[in-house]
């Protein structure tokens, strides 16, 4: 009951949050290293109608970090990454939802309205070290699960996609 209420409250809060006006197409630059993330259907592109980013480019968008436990790991973990919201702003993504797809083609759809600054983050370092594919790397959408019970739901868990390599804006 309580949880339901809280969700409703937040849903309203999100709705009220103005989505940032798309920034003028700015030059993303070209990836210098291995491409870790390809964003398609975004306003900002740098290669073949898509935006491709390496770890350095992601880090430049604005690093964020938090510590939390996850149901897939043992003990608290320190995550560094970039907020999904920051990325959306940066790439001028406009639409209803975001489809995130992993290396193994697992995909999940996240409504844009559910994305907040304090919510989903594309983590690229765990416990200070880059994540390998063998350890859910290189990119993992994580939430600060411990900070709020609303991040401890099955939906949130299902959106916590690891081995992320593609994002697509759905209209």
């Amino acid at each position, binding site marked *: 009951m309580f949880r339901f209420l809280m969700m409703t409250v937040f849903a309203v809060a999100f709705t009220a949050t103005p989505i940032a006006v798309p920034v003028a197409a700015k030059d993303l630059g070209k990836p210098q290293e291995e491409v870790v993330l390809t964003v398609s259907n975004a306003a900002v592109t740098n290669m073949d109608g898509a935006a491709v980013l390496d770890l350095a480019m992601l880090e430049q968008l604005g690093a964020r970090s938090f510590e939390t436990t*996850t*149901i*897939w*790991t*043992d003990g608290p973990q320190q995550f560094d990454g970039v907020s999904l919201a920051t990325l959306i702003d940066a790439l001028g993504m406009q639409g209803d939802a975001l489809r995130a797809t992993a*290396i*193994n083609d697992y995909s999940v759809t996240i409504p844009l309205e559910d994305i907040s600054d304090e919510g989903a983050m594309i983590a690229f370092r765990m416990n200070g070290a880059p994540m*390998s594919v*063998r350890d*859910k790397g290189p990119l993992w959408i994580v939430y600060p699960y411990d900070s709020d019970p609303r991040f401890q739901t099955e939906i949130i868990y299902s959106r916590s996609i690891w081995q992320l390599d593609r994002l697509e804006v759905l209209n």
Partner: protein
Amino acid sequence: MTGSAPMTPRVRILIPAVLFSLAFAAVAVFGSHILRDVQDLNAAHKDNLQWSLSQTDVEFLEFYTALVAAEGDGDGDLNTLRREFDIFYSRIRILNEAELYAPLRELPRLRTALGRVDGFLQAALPAIDASNVELRQNLPDLAEQAAEIRPVVRDLSISALGHLVALTDARREQTGRTLVWLGLSVGGLIVALLALAGYLNHLNSQNVRRRAEVVEASRRMNVVMGTSLDGVIISDTTGRILEFNAAAEQIFAIPAQEVIGRDLADVIVPDHHKAAHAAGMARLRNGGTRRVVGSGRVRLEAKRATGEVFPVELAIQSAETAQGEIFVAFLRDISAQVAAEEELVSARDLALAGEKAKTNFLATMSHEIRTPLNGLLGNLTLLQDTRLTARQRRYIGNMETSGKLLLSHINGVLDITKYDAGRLHLRPVVMNISDLVQDIIDNQSASAAANQSVLEWQWDGPAKNWIRADKDRLQDILMNLVGNAVKFTHNGRIRVTLACLGRENGLQIVVEDTGIGITPDQIRHVFEDFVTGDSSYARNVGGTGLGLALTKRFVTALGGHIDVESTPGQGSSFIVELPVEEAEPPQPAGPIHARQARGNPITGPRKVLLVEDNPINRDVAREMLRAAGHYVVEAHNGREAVDLARAGRFDLILMDISMPVMDRRSATRAIRALNGPASLTPIVALTANVMAEEQAAFLEDGMDGILTKPLSKDALLGLFSSGALPEQVDEICDQKEPAVSDEHLQSLKQALSPDGARVIVARFCKEIDELIGWLGQEEGEQRQDLPRIAAEAHKSAGSAATIGALCLRRQLIAIEEAAKSGSPTDLALAIDGLPAIWLATQSALKSAA
């Protein structure tokens, strides 16, 4: 409200509230469970766990496929193989490390499988991470190992899935149970809500009803107050008027809207009661004693708006209200009632005065009738002592009978008047009832014999002769009953039977006759006033009809009752039952001595002062006394009596009780106040009014006895023998002046022969007798001839001097002087004194001879 539930309203409202809260809490708890379960179920198709598990299989196959492909193609891309390995490696690592899979890792089969797969991966790591060349060399080994591990991976996912299915089933079951509980809770909540709704509805209807009742009661109260005939005023403790109904408006002549809110004291309390009212209100407020409030009806005075003060009757009650104590006064203008009461009181006073006047009138009239009647009867008695022919004697006898009957009627009326005026007083004395009955039988025997009837009496059972009772009343009762029986019985028998009643010292007197009897119609009225029996018979026997009425009054006065039984033509029977006190027989000395004394009257003549204003009665008394040889000096009123009593000594003063000039009481007191022996002279009242309290008053005033009129010769002369009078101390002539001087008589005898002296004395006696006779005859006329009286007295005085009758001579000189001086009173006194002195002189002469 039903009184069966001892619960307070608060408890009653608490129970459904608690019930409701419990049900609501249950629904909330179960609801949250349901929500969680539903969310869980919603999330199931995306379940990370299941996905991960199935992905284990898929990702292993991807890896295996890549491995097989790399092995088959000598120059194939190894990066794909490495990525697929990494993906699978990551998956197994998650299965090994994730908290999520901790429960799964508890499963032995899964743990074993997971250990083997992990072992395969760890073994494969060096080959995968080695250079392409080395990897290619190791591919066949890897493929072989992967083929071996494949069923293990399969087993891993299947066993995990099996467990998850069981978990899901358990959760579904749990959800089902939760749903059932939710249903029950909702049901309970609904029931609780329904109960609450029902209860609220009940409360509401109760409130509605109560409100209606209150409205109704208020409306009714307004109607009651509005239509009340009594003024209703409601005030608070400060005396401020809160309500003032229509009747109050009318009573106080002021409209309600002008007085509401004002102080009672200013509106209805009269000015002279304001201080008391203020004190009373202050006492009320301070919780002191409440004199008017709650003490029922009180009469007070109130004030109208016009300032008029009028009497009210009011009752005040106090009541507690939400606004504090109030006082409700009901008041009524009782001006009319008070006026009516006053009128009633004055009417009653008038009626009482009228009744008193009537009684007085009757008493006075009876008295006034009795006085001449006494004269008549007294004179008849005197007449009987004169020489009469037989016819005259018969006529006189008839006159006397009629006179006595008339007297008894008057006495009857007087007695009834006295009884009804409550002045009938009992005088119980020790008496012999047998003697009384015998006397009455003796008295009535002649009458009975005249009717050829037999009259007899007897005791039924043991006799009780001596009793203490009111003898006069008993005598009246018996006389009446026996007299009636005798009157109404011819050729029959009258029997008086006395009997002692066992209880209460009762005495029963039965008077039976075999006379004409009384009809049933008459018997009911027989004891009423002025009732006579058969009218034709009444003519025969006469009667006022008061006899039985009086008898019944006397019987009642004595504490008894009277009954009558009668059969017309056969006879009547009157039964009297009285409480009587048994008494010891008195010492025989008194009455016997008296009787003896009466039989042998003291012969010595006495000097009597007779005070009586009525000339006839005076004559009767005087003649009776003189006939018995006593000397009588007369006085016409109290003052004369006092003067005479002072002048000469008397053996007895007989005094009528009602006299002009100076009344009996003053005269008696004046005589008692005289100096010397005169003050001790016995005074006996003569009265027709024999009322007990009057008798007491007479004796208190200094009188020594009472004689009842009509005077009977026996009673009058009995005075002289009853021992009531002192010894005869007073000679007619005192010691210094003897009636007859022995010296003179002796010298006369010496001068003449004793015989000669006797002749002289005899002649002297004749002369004086003639003189007294002449003076006594027709005295009114004779006394006009004063010179002759003086001459005769002078002549006889000379004769008296001759024989030495000095006392007589002095009296004759006194007559002569009185006649000469022309004073009729002195003359009368002197003449009246003559016979007594003459009697004394005669006796002295006899003894001397």
